[in-house]
């Protein structure tokens, strides 16, 4: 008999997580928990000004603190050709500043000492003399003709502009606008936000001169890319570099880039011949590591009277900070911003983008996001909201008219993506019913008569998850495939390794479920390992919701190849030819004679003890998976709020999320991902942003100023599912990790706008803090979030 898939923890089982066994006992191993013999501790001195020439650095007092082993400055890095390093977007970034500091929080010097307290003491004794320069904190200032040049270190960089980029069909779009009955416009700012995983970044570099081996424990979502980067930057042979990413306390895109602290700790270990630990504090993390967003979004939509979209134009102006360090596929300068409107049937579209340097920390990481998709979908759904209002059409009706229909897949978007599958209208129906859409307008009017302001907002989207096929997607030339290695031991137990790296997504649990689904080996018999470049096959890491679409597919393919070999062994054991062998979960049997069979465990034993003549022993496989396309999940979110007219405070009355991420490997984990993502969406809509004053001081450099929602503020969410299997993924799964963060913010904002737009206001920029909402209610005017803010 075949085994029961749910019982063995296969696909579709809400299997409890394996990794929890250590986490609930406090036995997780995060970077800061690793202690190596003889380990030293490093602290970084950061610039307290945003733009200044360095006149001198005096480290003598720091050297005198007992217990200090090394003090590093930019000059010393430069002597070893390590003062600058390449970024993921073909720019350069200072490791330790030599000429100027270009943002507040930039790394200026480092102290390595016997303990972290001593290192901090000594850091405070370093004297840096600066000559202040004018500070630029937004693209507007950056493009002014008399703006100071931030990147005077670069040749061929006469201004602060990084790029101009465009995609789409300009003339076709122009034509659509000529034919339009109605043209709708919108102008938005998506504020700078920090992914802020609870655990900050850190590393322990351990260089062994006797073997030439460099081992680095590091908070990284992409250990193999880091290995390649270290090989390039530090000019060490790649086979002598071992990157270990232990348990990560969250990532959300923040732990993708290479940070100066990692590089400095490596050099410090080489120089001291001791392990060197660097653990960033929260302020260091918030002011210097990868930000998300910070982009101005301007749009226009050409519409026919009956609600049909004819075309759309979009212009983005992005603020990348002092170094263009966006983590994104090389081909696309502003990420996958052009995935905007992928769920709607839009005949013509055109996107132009301009990026600028400013005196802010480098930004542009994909914060729970596939490379600017969050901004793209926020823009899309705010534009849809404005357009429906301009047409005088119902919000749901307007979307349903324009959503791609089930029979139109695969559907080629105006920007050239090929969306794979979906049941968009069904998702709409499920959501509308759950939120009580049909009776809402009445409810809203009733409430308004009594002075209460209710609003309902919708956000729908499909997004490109699982970068990506090698024709289009690479990072620094490395194609974005992924990998899995499956070894089945003779007792039928197995070990699986992948090139991805879990940070809370539960890979140790779900990857085993895929193998269980493919082979019928109980998930509890499979151990999953990731994050050690000496043992895991090469992979591009975990971000942009790409693990299930790419690494998950590689797991399925590795298991299938193992099964193919096991089939040959089964034929040998059953003494029939391979063509006469049938498979059911966990077992091969002879066609026409169901009782005569062998289990996958029998085959595993035979692979080591009784293989057919001429067959290579063992039962294992390494698979590399180059996805044919991205996967396209769909989300339809409905949010109902009440705004207090006296204070501008808004409360979520109900939130309905309908997600279609294809086949769900572990429904419990999928729901966990959605709830976590919705909370980040709520955070961005309501409170979570980082801004800068005119002098470039970062406002939001700690958790007292950078507000994150607690259990108290966070609303409850009602989740629904629709399943449209992905047609090109081996197990029909699509990405899910970021969907809620991407689609969520617009649902909240549209709901609040719906509650207050009777005053004439069209837009309040995020975050919708009470003071902004109150101002909009009082004045009927838009409220812009354009920095810099004045600090009173």
């Amino acid at each position, binding site marked *: 008999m075949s085994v029961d898939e749910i019982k063995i923890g296969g696909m579709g089982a809400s299997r409890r997580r394996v990794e929890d066994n250590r986490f609930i006992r406090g036995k997780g191993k995060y970077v800061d928990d690793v202690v190596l013999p003889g380990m030293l501790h490093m602290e970084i001195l950061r610039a307290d000004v945003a733009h200044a020439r360095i006149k001198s650095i005096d480290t003598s007092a720091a050297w005198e603190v007992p217990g200090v082993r090394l003090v590093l400055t930019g000059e010393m890095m430069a002597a070893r050709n390590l003062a600058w390093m390449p970024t993921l977007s073909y720019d350069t970034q200072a490791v330790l500043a030599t000429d100027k500091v270009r943002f507040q929080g930039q790394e200026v010097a480092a102290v390595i000492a016997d303990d*972290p307290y001593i290192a901090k003491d000594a850091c405070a004794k370093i004297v840096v003399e600066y000559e202040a320069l004018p500070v630029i904190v937004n693209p507007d200032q950056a493009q002014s003709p008399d703006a100071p040049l931030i990147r005077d270190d670069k040749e061929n960089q006469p201004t602060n502009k990084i790029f101009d980029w465009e995609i789409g069909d300009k003339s076709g779009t122009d034509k659509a606008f000529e034919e339009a009955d109605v043209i709708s416009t919108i102008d938005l700012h998506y504020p700078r936000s920090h992914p802020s*995983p609870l655990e900050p970044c850190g590393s322990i570099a351990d260089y062994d001169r006797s073997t030439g081996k460099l081992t680095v424990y590091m908070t990284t979502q992409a250990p193999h890319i880091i290995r390649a980067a270290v090989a390039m930057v530090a000019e060490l042979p790649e086979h002598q570099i071992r990157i270990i990413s232990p348990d990560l*306390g969250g990532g959300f895109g923040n732990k993708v880039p290479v940070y100066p602290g990692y590089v400095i700790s490596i050099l410090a270990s080489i120089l001291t011949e001791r392990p060197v630990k660097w653990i960033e504090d929260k302020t260091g993390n918030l002011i210097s590591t990868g930000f998300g967003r910070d982009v101005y979004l301007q749009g226009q939509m050409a519409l026919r009277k009956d609600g049909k979209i004819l075309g759309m134009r979009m212009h983005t102006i992005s603020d990348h900070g002092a170094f263009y360090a966006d983590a994104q596929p090389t081909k696309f300068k502003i990420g996958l911003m052009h995935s905007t409107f992928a769920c709607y049937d839009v005949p013509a579209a055109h996107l132009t983008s301009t990026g600028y340097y400013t005196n802010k920390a480098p930004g542009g990481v994909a914060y729970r996001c596939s490379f600017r998709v969050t901004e793209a979908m926020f823009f899309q759904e705010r534009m849809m909201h404005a357009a429906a209002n301009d047409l005088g059409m119902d919000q749901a009706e307007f979307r349903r008219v324009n959503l791609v229909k089930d029979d139109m897949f695969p559907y080629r978007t105006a920007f050239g993506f090929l969306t794979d599958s979906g049941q968009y209208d069904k998702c709409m129906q499920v959501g509308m019913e759950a939120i009580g859409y049909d009776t809402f307008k009445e409810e809203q009017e009733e409430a308004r008569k009594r002075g209460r302001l209710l609003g309902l907002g919708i956000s729908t989207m499909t997004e490109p998850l699982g970068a990506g096929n090698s024709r289009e997607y690479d990072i620094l030339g490395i194609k974005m495939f992924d990998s899995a290695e499956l070894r089945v031991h003779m007792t039928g137990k197995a070990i699986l390794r992948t090139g991805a790296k879990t940070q809370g997504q*539960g890979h140790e649990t779900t990857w085993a479920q895929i193998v269980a689904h493919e082979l019928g080996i109980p998930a509890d018999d499979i151990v999953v390992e990731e994050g050690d470049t000496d043992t895991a096959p090469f992979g591009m890491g975990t971000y942009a919701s790409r693990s299930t679409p790419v690494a998950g597919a590689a797991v399925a393919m590795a298991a299938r190849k193992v099964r193919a070999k096991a089939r040959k062994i089964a034929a040998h054991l059953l003494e029939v030819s391979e063509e006469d062998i049938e498979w059911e979960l966990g077992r091969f049997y002879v066609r026409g004679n169901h009782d005569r069979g062998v289990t996958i465990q029998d085959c595993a034993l035979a692979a080591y003890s009784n293989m057919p003549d001429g067959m290579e022993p063992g039962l294992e496989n390494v698979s590399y998976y180059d996805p044919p396309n991205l996967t396209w999940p769909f989300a339809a979110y409905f949010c109902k709020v009440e705004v207090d007219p006296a204070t501008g405070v808004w409360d979520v009355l109900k939130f309905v999320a309908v997600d279609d991420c294809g086949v769900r490997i572990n429904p419990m984990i999928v729901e966990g991902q959605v709830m976590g993502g919705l909370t*980040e969406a709520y955070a961005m809509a309501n409170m979570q942003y980082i801004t800068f004053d005119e002098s470039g001081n970062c406002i939001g450099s700690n958790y007292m100023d950078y507000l994150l929602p607690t259990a108290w503020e966070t609303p409850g*969410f009602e989740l629904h599912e629709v399943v449209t299997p992905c047609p090109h993924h081996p197990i029909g799964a699509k990405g899910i990790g970021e969907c809620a963060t991407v689609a969520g913010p617009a649902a909240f904002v549209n709901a609040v706008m719906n509650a207050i737009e009777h005053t004439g206001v069209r837009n309040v920029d995020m975050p919708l803090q009470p003071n902004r909402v109150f101002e909009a209610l009082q004045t009927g005017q838009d409220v812009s979030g354009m920095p810099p803010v004045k600090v009173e």
Partner: protein
Amino acid sequence: MTSLYNEVAADPGADTPTRRVSITVNGEQRTVDIEPRLLLAHLLRQGLGLTGTHTGCDTTNCGACTVLFDGRPIKSCTMLAVQADGHDVETVEGMATASELHPVQEGFKECHGLQCGFCTPGMMLASKALLERNPNPTEDDVRWALSGNLCRCTGYQNIVKSVLWAAEKMRAENGEEA
């Protein structure tokens, strides 16, 4: 006796002041010589090797460093280790017995109340303290009791569920005993 961090250092010398403190940690008395400025979180983590207590923010905001101090949840990143002299500290490592998990630990696993696990020890200890005070909390009681602990992964909904699950289990167990 542990002299914190000094296992690799040269002798700190006579001018580094140290204080001897005795703290009961997870039921065991520990006596250590430490610098007076050492934070309790660091003593637990580096000095005593109890790395289940995490530090997320250093500003008393995130609660990853929450431990029970004489049974009450406190943030160990904001307490000097010397202040704990003579007191009782419980960390996540003290929650389970050799054979049995605490119901709060079981609840977190059962209800998917954690993802990356970084906030989890602090969350669980704050939850344990709540349930000792209030064996029958409402959802709002739980949300309020945990509002000093941040989680960036879960969205809290499953954490709340986990605590309510544990409450029910503890009530059932206590009912049986009674």
